[in-house]
């Protein structure tokens, strides 16, 4: 490995060949990165590209399996968060790490409190805290309780806290995801001021508009690898999307047009509790498979959970097979023919310590009951049929579902709902954490179900999955449906364009040469 480039004296951070594996799966592969003093480097990529993993390694939350990190030309030993803090590397997390019960001063100086021998010296602490609060342009009393602040103000408190540790490098992971427009602008102003004091900023965001406005340089990751970097004059939304999507940009037409029958699900003016400002409208026919794309936090899970009655809608109507129903609880959703394979298999899908048989029959017990008593014969037959039909590999039906592989666990959740023969099957990230072989099997099962006339909606982060399965893709952005793509207009670039807030579904032109390719 070559020694760090010390020719440029203002080089703050150099990352060389970082790799990271999660139980054998490669999350980062030989990633390189540099950051100069006072520079803002935006790191972008699709969901799962490895951005957050890389930042966590720099902040000492995770440790790299391979590679080296240099700070101002010297090898940095970062094995823990306190190592990172000690060397001035601070991660400001998506979810804030604060103690809401304490006041602002205590939060700013958390871990470096002033004291006179035994007792906290509140006066000194407040004076110190005030200094840092002023640096981030926050005009509040240090004795105010943290809870009384807006999310934007809390974000600034977090930055003040970072300044109190004499941060040299500030890592910000989606800092604006819960800020209002004005708070965002204020944050940008503070960031620019920090840059003038030679603090280097690593900025992760899905919002390409922000990146365009803020970044001095952009580094793009895909599948855990560097795939390009853009110098200031190259930073445009089109180039970023192109590099994030990568691979072949040739449009991937959907081969078969499934002939939709009567509408299975009609959603009219639906307002979810989490994004009340948008009205959602769409419908799906029998035998149709619709993908829901969008970035993390775009409101996809909120939509499917609302349809399933986990969260009540604020307004709007939902019709299943022509019948209006109000999704107030999963019980009612199931009765009217909707099923949901939830996103988090382990916490929402399965009872891990219970037998496969029990997990399989959970939803159909009510239907198969004998006046309240279990119908054990039916239960056993159903479990056997389903495991054979879906090819679930197990030692026996009494085996706790915990000991199955991720793919087989997912099939158990799927089987539970197939036993109910729903009108509309909703899946939230159906192949998350599933191995390649099971993934393919799940795709085949879903295709078969659609061919048999079931309406299927699936939320997915994976472009290949969306393009392989969906007849139509609904793209969400900030809680609204930004576009519906099908046929020729359904391709990777169009999906990314809508998902990052592009306001048309037109595909940007093809003449986009001269981009720094993979290194």
């Amino acid at each position: 490995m070559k020694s760090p480039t010390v020719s440029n004296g203002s080089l703050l951070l150099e990352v060389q060949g970082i790799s990271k594996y999660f139980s054998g799966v490669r999350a980062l592969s030989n990633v390189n990165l540099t950051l100069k003093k006072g520079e803002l480097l935006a790191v972008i990529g699709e969901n799962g590209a490895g951005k957050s993993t890389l930042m966590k390694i720099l902040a000492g939350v995770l440790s790299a399996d391979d590679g080296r990190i240099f700070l101002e030309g010297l090898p940095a030993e970062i094995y823990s968060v306190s190592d990172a803090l000690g060397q001035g590397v601070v991660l400001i997390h998506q979810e804030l790490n604060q103690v809401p019960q304490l006041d602002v001063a205590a939060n700013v100086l958390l871990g470096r409190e002033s004291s006179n021998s035994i007792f906290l010296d509140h006066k000194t602490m407040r004076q110190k805290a005030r200094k840092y609060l002023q640096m981030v342009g926050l005009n509040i009393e240090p004795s105010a309780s943290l809870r009384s602040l807006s999310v934007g103000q809390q974000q600034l408190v977090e930055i003040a806290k970072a300044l109190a540790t004499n941060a040299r490098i500030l890592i910000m992971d989606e800092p604006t995801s819960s800020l209002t427009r004005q708070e965002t602008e204020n944050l940008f102003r503070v960031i620019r001021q920090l840059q003038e004091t030679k603090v280097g900023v690593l900025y992760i965001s899905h919002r390409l508009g922000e990146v365009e406005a803020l970044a001095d340089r952009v580094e793009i990751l895909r599948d855990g690898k560097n795939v390009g970097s853009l110098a200031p004059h190259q930073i445009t939304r089109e180039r970023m999307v192109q590099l994030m999507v990568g691979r072949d940009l040739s449009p991937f037409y959907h081969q078969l047009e499934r002939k939709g029958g009567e509408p299975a699900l009609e959603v009219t003016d639906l307002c979810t509790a989490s994004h009340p400002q948008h009205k959602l409208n769409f419908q799906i026919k029998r035998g149709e498979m619709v993908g829901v794309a969008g970035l993390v936090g775009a409101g996809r899970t909120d939509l499917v959970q609302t349809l399933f009655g986990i969260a009540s809608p604020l307004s709007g109507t939902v019709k299943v097979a022509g019948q209006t129903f109000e999704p107030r609880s999963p019980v009612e959703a199931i009765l009217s023919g909707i099923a949901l394979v939830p996103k988090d298999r382990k916490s929402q899908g399965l009872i891990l310590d219970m037998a496969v048989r029990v997990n399989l029959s959970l939803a159909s017990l009510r239907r198969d009951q004998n006046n309240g008593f279990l119908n054990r014969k039916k239960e056993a037959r159903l479990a056997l049929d389903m495991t054979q039909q879906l090819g679930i590999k197990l030692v026996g039906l009494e085996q706790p579902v915990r000991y199955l592989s991720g793919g087989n666990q997912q099939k158990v959740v799927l089987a539970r709902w197939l036993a109910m023969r729903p009108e509309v099957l909703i899946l939230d990230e159906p192949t998350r954490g599933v191995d390649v072989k099971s993934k393919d099997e799940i795709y085949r099962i879903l295709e078969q179900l659609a061919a048999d006339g079931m309406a299927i909606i699936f939320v997915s982060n994976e472009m290949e999955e969306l393009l392989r399965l969906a007849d139509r893709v609904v793209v969400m952005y900030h809680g609204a449906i930004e576009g519906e793509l099908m046929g020729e207009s359904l391709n990777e670039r169009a999906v990314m364009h809508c998902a990052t807030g592009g306001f048309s579904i037109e595909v940007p032109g093809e003449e986009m040469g001269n981009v720094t390719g993979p290194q």
Partner: protein
Amino acid sequence: MRKIAGIIGLLVVICVLTALLNDRFLTAYNIENVIRRSALFGIISIGAGFVIITAGIDLSIGSLVCLSGVFLPFLLTQFGFSVPAALATIGLGSLLLGGLHGLLITRLRLQPFVVTLCGLLLYRGLARGLTGDQTQGFGNDFIGLRALATGKVGIPFVENFAIPAPCIILIVVGVAAAIFLNRTIYGRYLLALGGNEEAARYSGINTDRMTVIAYIICSGLAGLGGTLFVLDVNSAQPVDFGNFYELYAIAAAVLGGCSLRGGEGAVLGIVVGAAVMQVLRNSVTLLGVPTQLEFAIIGGVILAGVVTDEVLKRLARKQRRVKDSH
């Protein structure tokens, strides 16, 4: 099943040891007595078990035993209630309180520990306050009613031993509870909700309703227990009647294989767990151990049992891993 085998083994060991050390243990009088006490505690422990299976807890059992135990004679002797009216009042009252616990927990999302801790204080205070802290009893009346707890059912061809009535009641309650838990969809729902409440909800189970049902069962059985306890001993002092019974009940459920994390438990195990504790108390008395040490001994034996169980489990896991790696 393995868990139940363990607790049955513990019961047998304690019985054999006590019998060897003291020959009064196996007298008919003593056995009848131990069975009666075990049955009474078994009834309230089954209730505690239902709540624990849902990953909840009920600390108000002892105070509810007191409230119902004090109120039964109070209503009969001071207010002239008829027997059916008094029993109905106690029964409905305790079911209602259980429902209230359940609603506070599911609707207001209060923690079960807090809700039932308040119950513990409230019901004890009510029992003492409303009766002016006076001991309540039946005197020499209500012999027929008291037979529910003090009576015996003879066994054909056995002369000097009879089955105490509470044992029959326990069998009825236990069989009903076991059928409910293992054979009905609602029992399955309770176990599922204790195993993973969110997954249960996502599977279309009305988890709130099931939680309320568990607390109703628990308080209902505490009410029944209180009734039988007072019928058995004939006098109840509001200040300490049923004191610590919730802890006996919870310990019995845990000894019997219920996990405080929820999702597992069997009625038979719970009943045997309750018996272990009553036999222990009996041994302490018979063996001439200073009664002040009673709690220490019960606590020590439970701890030893739980530790042994955990150690055995780990050994089994290790062995399985060794086997898997070959």
